[in-house]
């Protein structure tokens, strides 16, 4: 009984910590907001990459789409989008709180809609691909989307798009977005937890383990895959839409379709934490982001080189991730499944 109470107390303490953290350390509000962005990225990657065994390099597409959809709606609502593509002129626009929140809300709605439509249409088409072909196709998708955004004049092409500033009276920018991303991450986690525990989780795990058999058992695999892809798309769209506003400036290749940074990090974080587990991506995101914020600057420009090295090392030597390793080491405490074949952390070796 006491174990149960202490566990409950621990959970309550963690929730309270998450709620008050930005107030305790106001200097790090933006970094803490980005932490929840990382959690969201890695959680949504894991739906396909971990639970379903579909290695996607293209999830960043929805992040970028959401970001652009939100920004374009926000701009068009009160001003023409053309005024904003001009960096110097656009940045000065000042909105009232009501205007801003309306624009933000409608923008996020548009982001969800766009991501959902694209995910269902594209998903239905490309989710028939498997293995190498799916991975490279999504890589092409991400790179292609970046190139199109980079060449499309309406959304500012290579010179980017400035998002509206958060008006006075909504608190500091870091705080506002911290709570937005915290709530979104909690929502995403709860949704996934609910889904993984039920039929949906079993179905996508079956697809990972043996798609032929899953299909032979009567699962509508393409439908499940499209749903999984759409769930990631919606959450990524909501994340991207707000992330654009947090950053304040959307660059097509470095922020929106940033294959070299966020697009890779989401894969890395999920694998680091333990892909195919619920908590793994969260742990991976925390460890990765905190390490990055603390030590990255000491590497003086060699960060991204180190990142490549890190991916190789983790993939080759530590594919089970932190949670997978803990489960192997102390199966009793980390809830290993009784049958190793059911253990999601080991599923990929089968």
């Amino acid at each position, binding site marked *: 009984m006491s174990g149960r109470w202490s566990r409950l107390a621990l959970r309550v303490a963690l929730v309270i910590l998450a709620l008050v953290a930005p107030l305790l350390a106001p200097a790090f509000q933006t970094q803490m907001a980005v932490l929840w962005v990382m959690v969201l990225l890695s959680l949504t990657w894991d739906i396909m990459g971990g639970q379903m*065994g579909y*290695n996607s*390099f293209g999830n960043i597409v929805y992040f970028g789409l959401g970001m652009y959809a939100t920004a374009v709606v926000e701009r068009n609502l009160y001003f023409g989008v053309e005024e904003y593509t001009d960096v110097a002129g656009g940045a000065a626009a000042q909105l009232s709180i009501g205007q801003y929140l309306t624009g933000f809300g409608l923008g996020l709605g548009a982001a969800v809609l766009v991501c959902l439509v694209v995910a269902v249409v594209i998903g239905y*088409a*490309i989710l*028939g*691909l*498997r*293995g*190498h*072909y799916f*991975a*490279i*196709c999504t*890589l*092409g*998708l991400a*790179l*292609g989307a970046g*190139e*199109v955004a*980079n*060449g499309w004049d309406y959304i500012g*092409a*290579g010179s980017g798009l400035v998002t509206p500033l958060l008006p006075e009276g909504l608190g500091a920018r870091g705080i506002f977005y911290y709570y937005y991303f915290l709530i979104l991450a909690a929502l995403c986690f709860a949704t996934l937890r609910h889904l993984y525990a039920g039929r949906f989780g079993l179905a996508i795990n079956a697809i990972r383990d043996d798609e032929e058999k899953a299909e032979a058992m009567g699962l509508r695999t393409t439908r499940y895959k499209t749903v999984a892809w759409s769930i990631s798309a919606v959450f990524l769209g909501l994340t991207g839409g707000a992330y654009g506003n947090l950053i304040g400036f959307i660059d097509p290749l470095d922020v929106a379709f940033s294959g*070299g940074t966020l697009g*890779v990090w989401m*894969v890395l974080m999920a*694998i680091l934490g333990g892909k195919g587990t619920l908590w793994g991506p969260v742990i991976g995101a925390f460890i990765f982001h905190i390490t990055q914020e603390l030590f990255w600057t000491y590497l003086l*420009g*060699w960060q*991204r*080189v180190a*990142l*490549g*090295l*890190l*991916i*190789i090392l983790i*993939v*080759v030597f530590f*594919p089970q991730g932190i949670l997978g390793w803990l489960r192997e080491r102390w199966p009793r405490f980390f809830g290993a499944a009784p049958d190793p074949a059911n253990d999601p952390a080991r599923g*990929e*070796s089968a």
Partner: protein
Amino acid sequence: MDNLQILIQAPIFSVQLLLDGLLVGAIFALAAYGMALVWGVMNIINIAQGEFVILGGYVTYLLAGHGINPLFGVPLSALALFVVGWVIYRLVIFRIVERDLFTSLLATFGVSILLQQLMNQLFGADIQNADAGLGTTGFAGGDIAIANIKIVAFGIAIVVGAVLVLFLKRSRLGQAIRATAQNARAARILGVDTDRVYATTFALNAALCGAAGALVVMTWVIQPFIGLIYTVRAFMIVIVAGLGNVAGVVVTALGLGAAENFAGFVLGSQFQAAFVFVLLIAILLWRNWRLSRQRRYLQ
């Protein structure tokens, strides 16, 4: 779309685009052939393929900076990349040869990022090229101007490819490579040192990319972050042509070069890369759709 009008009004211009594209396509064929080799023998799709190409380009660029004619850069880049490929095999790739595809894809993706960022740190993010100083030749009374280096590059690419095919068909090691591709276990039982075969295959692939990169830096430009598009091109060529189909690889590569050149001209050069990626997706979907009608899929 205005450029489409130009093509209709001046048909001779499309001959120019066609020739330019075909000549550049031969360079793509080299990287694609290397990818097919590694894929066929080791069952690994090397995402770092494009980075090998760019690295080869930088080797030639550096040599040219020291006053060496970039044409000599072709064998030297190939040699340098052979060593790089061997080292990468010994450090990383040999650990993933027998592992599942998820691991090999992600590991080569990591190699790709590592090389990309390493080049960015070492050589900077600027666009570079090396001029072999061969001038241009006019055809059809000067209406068509082709840079001589493109013709030379085409010739070199064809010769390198032919040498490699002969090597695989005739030499002892080539036979071992082909045997391993057919059945690694049986080859091992018959005394083939498959580990060495894998190492050679991977290094040969890197060398091919190195030669291709030397040609790219002379005919075009290089930049640390444009490697992935070469990977995508190579992949696209291989899936259209099929593994182990040399003639198919060459024809497809030439076709891709020409198609890309036309697309770049008509859509505007900022969309040329986007065209390549969209074409990749279209080809994959079309192939898969054809197969799905027989309840099969690409594998």
